[in-house]
């Protein structure tokens, strides 16, 4: 299982702000995760945008970064400041 977090407008795209799920065996990197989820949500590329950064276990990572069971993976659109 991985814990997925969707911040900002991506919570509207995903219809939720977080979920726990088991990744298919074909999804082993952040790049594959983006594509898989984008199709699953019919997000039309919203999760593929390079300005949407991914954090794995609270560290911002660069694609492709490995993902595995137990990870917390956050989808972070550009921050708007306080």
């Amino acid at each position, binding site marked *: 299982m991985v814990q997925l977090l969707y911040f900002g407008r991506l919570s509207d795209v995903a219809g939720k702000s977080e979920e726990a799920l088991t990744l298919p065996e074909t999804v082993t990197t952040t790049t594959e995760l983006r594509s898989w989820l984008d199709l699953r949500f019919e997000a039309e590329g919203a999760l593929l945008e390079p300005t949407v950064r991914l*954090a794995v276990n609270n560290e911002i990572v660069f694609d492709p970064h490995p993902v595995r069971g137990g990870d917390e993976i956050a989808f972070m659109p550009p*921050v*708007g400041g306080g």
Partner: protein
Amino acid sequence: MMTVSADPIDAGAALSAFETDIGGAGGIVSFTGRVRPDSKHGSVATLHLQAYSPMTERGIEQAIAQTEKRWPLSGLKVIHRIGDMAPGDTVVFVAAAAMHRRDAFEAADFLMDYLKTNAIFWKKEVTDQGVVWIEPRPQDYEENARWALTEDA
């Protein structure tokens, strides 16, 4: 020194507590930021702020460390609110204390610049015209500067 919370902020009480904490410094500058009643998207009913803990807190702590390195300060305080707020509610309180006023003014200004642009918050406005997530324009993040603070961690 730093708090991110959904609890309402009482800026007057925060300033009082800060004055007591820092003791005998020469000067204190404080800034209180409140929710505006109007935005370019319409008349604001609710401002919603999301943080990602502990990444948001870590970023603010790094900004505080930078501020303390740059100016000789005797105290620094940041309180940032998250969750749903109404116009007039306090979003942010920053206070800086120093032996000399200019250091305190500049330190508070520098920290506010960080909090307003680079801090890890997502912001949604609910107005009479609809609901909109506020994001920077593409040119604002072209240089990737928005992420520099967290990536250095």
